[in-house]
């Protein structure tokens, strides 16, 4: 058993090595573009350089002196925009290809408690879908399993790579718990039913509590390997995030109490439909939220018709850390619309740069990768893109070039190929 443990360690070490592999690049300068830094700031006439896969100069071009000979290439991008990579959290992108074809779906393992399963190794770098997502500016995804009480572990992946190893940004970043629902939907997609009270709600919380008690005890030292327990260790050691999926205010209260009882250091609520109702509790406990898709209907016939559109702005005003997601039906192929959902929040009150932040630095912070990327800042990884127009507006979003770790990526995709082929027919 001890042998096995060390094997796991070796694997983990390998992953770290792979993921920190740096592409050798000569310095490149982008000058004249509007740089949306992702941290809420914007530089209108910017100078942004990248060196060795990282941002170097990030400045107002009119305020600094630039030596052109220091750069291999200078891109003049006047009237264009620079954005840090858009990040789509909580998605099945890369582990599903065609929803209706079961063979292509790798996100829902059988069984109820699967903390040990890892999306990372199922991630398909050659997904036709992901190529269409990155060409809209979304370059990073938190690839997340679904189903059961504990779906498994997500990993944060670049939408580029020869294999899952080099596509990995952060492996096994957290464990996803589907909080028991006090009320649940019945029926199935073709024949939806009503909502029923969950009579087993407290029993299910008890079961979850027991499981966590066990896992906590295990994390204090065990001489046998239990894969499930092993996978949950990080939650108590502070190196894995607990992602709790829940929406109703009552459920969220219970979930927060649970998180506090177990002293979980890294915690995130996913969904949070009722977040505004318990905003004080969220603030007090400093729990970030990954929101449901902005482009959704209000949760009731009485609710304000624009409630889903204004939620981001209202949370921003409260100072709650949140980010947008595109989870829900058709989440994988729809992830390319993530920028436009941020655009919608602008129409409903959000400041533009804050909207950019809600799909860049905020998700990076929430996913625990903001030390690596998330904003256009000196020293951060040069994972970003240039759009000829405003990237949050579908009318103008047009990604001219994109870079992952300083390396330019191919923005072609299956759909563009077909377009060219039939357009030139």
């Amino acid at each position, binding site marked *: 058993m001890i042998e096995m443990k060390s094997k796991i360690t070796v694997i983990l070490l390998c992953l770290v090595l792979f993921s920190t592999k740096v592409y050798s690049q000569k310095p490149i300068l982008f000058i004249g573009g509007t740089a949306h830094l992702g941290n809420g700031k914007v530089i209108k006439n910017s100078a942004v350089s990248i060196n060795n896969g990282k941002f170097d100069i990030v400045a107002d071009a009119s305020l600094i002196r630039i030596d052109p000979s220091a750069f291999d290439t200078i891109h003049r991008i006047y009237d264009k925009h620079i954005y840090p990579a858009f990040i789509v959290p909580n998605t099945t992108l890369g582990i599903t*290809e*065609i*929803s*209706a*074809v079961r063979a292509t779906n790798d996100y829902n393992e059988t069984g109820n408690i699967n903390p040990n399963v890892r999306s990372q190794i199922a991630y398909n770098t050659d997904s*036709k*879908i992901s190529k269409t997502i990155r060409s809209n500016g979304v370059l990073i995804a938190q690839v997340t399993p679904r189903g059961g009480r504990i779906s498994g572990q997500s990993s944060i992946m670049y939408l580029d790579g020869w294999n899952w190893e080099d596509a990995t940004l952060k492996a096994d970043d957290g464990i996803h718990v589907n909080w028991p629902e006090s*009320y649940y*939907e019945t*029926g199935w*997609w*073709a*024949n*939806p039913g*009503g*909502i*029923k*009270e969950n009579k087993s709600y407290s029993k299910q919380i008890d079961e979850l509590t027991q499981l966590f008690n066990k896992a906590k005890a295990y994390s204090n030292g065990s001489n046998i390997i239990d894969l499930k327990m092993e996978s949950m260790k990080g939650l108590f050691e502070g190196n894995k995030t607990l992602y709790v999926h829940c929406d*109703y*205010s*009552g459920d969220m209260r219970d979930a927060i109490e649970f998180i506090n009882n177990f002293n979980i250091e890294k915690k995130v609520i996913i969904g949070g439909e009722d977040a505004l*109702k318990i905003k004080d509790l969220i603030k007090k406990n400093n729990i970030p939220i990954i929101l449901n898709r902005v*482009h*959704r*209907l*209000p*949760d*009731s*016939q*009485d609710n*304000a*018709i*624009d409630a889903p559109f204004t939620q981001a702005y209202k949370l921003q005003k409260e100072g709650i850390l949140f980010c947008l997601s595109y989870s829900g039906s*058709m989440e*994988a*192929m729809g992830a*390319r*619309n993530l920028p*436009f959902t941020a*655009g*919608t929040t*602008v*129409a*409903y009150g959000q400041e533009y740069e804050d909207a950019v932040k809600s799909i860049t630095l905020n998700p990076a912070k929430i996913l625990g990768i903001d030390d690596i990327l998330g904003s256009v800042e000196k020293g951060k990884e040069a994972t970003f893109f240039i759009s000829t127009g405003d990237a*949050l*507006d*579908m*009318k*103008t*979003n*047009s990604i001219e070039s994109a870079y992952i770790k300083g390396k330019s990526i191919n923005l072609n995709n299956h*759909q*563009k190929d*077909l*377009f060219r082929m*039939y*357009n030139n027919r």
Partner: protein
Amino acid sequence: MSIRNYFILLFMIFHFVALLAQEGFQVNGVQNNFKPTFAFTNAYIVVSPEKVIEKGTLIIKGDRIISVDTTTLIPKDAIIIDLNGDYIYPSFIDLYSNYGLPKIEKKNNNYYSPQYESNKKGAYHWNQAIHPEINASSNFNTNKEERENYIKNGFGSVLTHFQDGIFRGTGTFVLLSDKSNQESMLEAKAATFYSFKKGVSTQKNPSSLMGSIALIRQSLLDAEWYETQKEQTNLSYYSYNNTNDLPKVFSVTDVLDYQRVHKIADEFEIEFIIKGNGKEYSRIQEVINTSSPVIIPINFPNPYDVSNPEATEWISLSKLKDWETSPFNPVILANNNIEFCITSSDLKNENDFFKNLKLAIKKGLKKSDALASLTINPAKIVNLDSEIGVLEVGKIANFFIASNDVFENGIIYENWIAGEKNIITKKSLIDIRGYYTLNSTEFKNELVKITGKKENPELIIYSLDSLPLISKIVGSNINISLKNGSFRATGKYYNNETIKGRYQNIDGAFYNFIMIKDSTIEEKESAFSLEIENNIPAIWTPNKSYGFNKNKPIPESVLFKNATVWTNEKEGVLLNTDVIISNGKIIAIGTLLNPFNYFKEGEFKTIDASTMHLTCGIIDEHSHIAISRGVNEGTQAVSAEVRIGDVINPTDHNIYRQLAGGTVAAQLLHGSANPIGGQSAIIKFRWGQSAEEMKIKNADEFIKFALGENVKQSNWGDQERVRFPQTRMGVEQIFYDAFYRALEYEKSWIEYNKLPIKKKRITPPPREDLELNALVEILNSERFITCHSYVQSEINMLMHVADSMGFKINTFTHILEGYKVAKKMKEHGAGGSTFSDWWAYKFEVNDAIPHNATLLNNNEVLTAINSDDAEMGRRLNQEAAKAIKYGGTSEEDAWKMVTLNPAKLLHLDDRMGSIKVGKDADIVLWTENPLSVYSKVIQTYVDGKLLFDIKKDLELRQRDLKERMRIIQLISEDKTSKNKKQPKPEKEKLYHCDDRDEE
């Protein structure tokens, strides 16, 4: 009573004795032939809703009433019952019952495969849910327990039927007596029954409301046709035709169904009696329009538990309003002169009947109307008013005796049915309460007090330390025992003053005792007073959040000044332009328009639109919102007979949400579960109006076709491998088969219509087939196709089918591989209505590309972008903008894809789809370029009516919150029911093409 009357009375007594002999029965033992005469004297007789005899005598003989009068002349052989002022009412009649019938249970369909055909034996209708041949009378059996539940609420007779299926068969009218089935049955077949619910039928069809409606239509036609043909025997049609003259009762579960039944009634000249769901108040005009008598339940909703403010938010305002208004439903019907009956059906607990009835009275229902709704109205409906319903000579002796006015605080003592007494509440004649002096060997002059209720007295002996209880009083016999058993007595009450008896002490010894009454206790019962609260709450249209209060919007006269106008005409986008609308039309476009050329001062409003963009409304070529109970009738490969137009739901709040996104009209399509689906409805989102009013008048007729994975059931699970077709090969054959059948059908009609008049008169017409009618319309270009399609092979195939049969495919919808066959589409003349960027959700959309709209458009295919989704339908402007992003379509062309182009595809461009003088005033004002993600709708006008306004929307939210809080306050104060309903979240039913929920 005069001598003459007396003789008439004698004659009648004789007459009825003859009638009453138990003829036709074998009797075990000696017959009971003597039917006594009963005279109920000193009664307050409620003869009928209009007539009361304050102090009268009711005389019955056998099962008939022989006198109702103020007479004191009573036949000698009569048994006299002095009612001492008690009330007599005619017993109630319930027309909607399943009394005495076997329970209907759905058989577990153990088949692994779905059942598409009837598995019923015998020569009956092809659909198991159509069974007019079933007679309640053949299965009726008196049932003691069910009977008691009715009679304790004053009912004396019911019309009972099998509450199952669409054509349910006949109901039988029975008296609630405990006599034999034969004697209880007053009319074996009193009415026939119908509904939209297929019930326990295990057959797949129909799975939707529109499928039920189509099935009803076709069955009514076939029943007529059956009479003209000799080729087949069908016991269902035979039975239907034989019972055609009976009253027809149609049971509905949704107030929107009134309009649906009304349409069928008009079409087939049938007069239905409609059994409603108690929500008639919410759409009263549609109920009035049916001019049908209605049968309503009084199952008023219980109040909600509103103690948890968060959970209370889950209760929709419409439910809160319904809680408040439902008890007013009967009085609202009465106020609108609708003839109605009240049924006790649908109540969860039969004890709620009187509680709710009294609540309805409290809410303003007149007692006479209440009584009529339970007696004479139902009797008239089943044509039995000559037998029952009022207390008149010759009528059946069905009446009940009550302590007082039953609509106030009266309680029913006895319910006499067909002249036989049933005790409901024992009229406690003896009141033993008072102060007594107790004497026995042990007790000397002890003071005793008997208090409590008359029926349930409590006894206190002051010298004993604990309270004795009277455990039982039966007649004048009383048992008294102490709680600890140390004193156990039995006694009898004599002459209104003394209780004598024996008791046993703890040692087992018996002693005699005597208690002499010293005085009675003054009864302090508060007098009952009926307080009428007849302030009917405001009913909105629709009666929910964002509904209209009282004033429905009217077409406005507006001058929009200095707008950026997207004309969609050759003028393109005009800057600083004025637009004037009036009477629902655009009447002027230009710069610096002088409104006084069009209006007088004060007749119009001016909107400064200098920062705004003005466009025509968005039209969604493909939507499934605003549809009731099922979007697919996918239980057959061809369902051309079903009509979305039958099932429009004008109360869907998504209508308001679409308006807020600038969408003003949509084609509501059948789903894509079968190759030939149903007929579309093309509507404007006229929020606040009825289903019929939403339809666009004189719009061309459309129908949905579908191809590919959905119709071959690829993604329905492994058990769904039965229905033809299962491959694209089979899909083609379905079309050819359908259209060849249609050609043959058309030919038979042409030949029939060509016959010389004389010959025609003697030749039976061909059978009318609604499915084939629709297909013939397609062949004759009188009905147009919108076809759900994805891959190029199938698109190509359908164009071949159409070309070879001589018609056109109007629109391919979804058409995600349309770009591969754009030239062929152009050649054929088909348009395309596509998703902007959906793909990868199934195998057949693997080659779907977001450049599709652009490529189609570039190939001069008329191209639209649609939603197929309630959420996307409210931001189609954004979807159009994606054509700019992906394909490089111009802004104006992209905008046309959600406005003018869908108008053209729907053949509505003569009145909609652009800003042009003479077109409908469907106007949207935007904060900026409507194709921008940052653009918001400021106002939406439909036919010149302002149906969405961003400022008014905020006011409505405040109004709705106020209304919500007002009703929550009322619920908090409500004491009528301890049974509080727990709130829970509500889920919206949202339809897409492939949703197949069951009706």
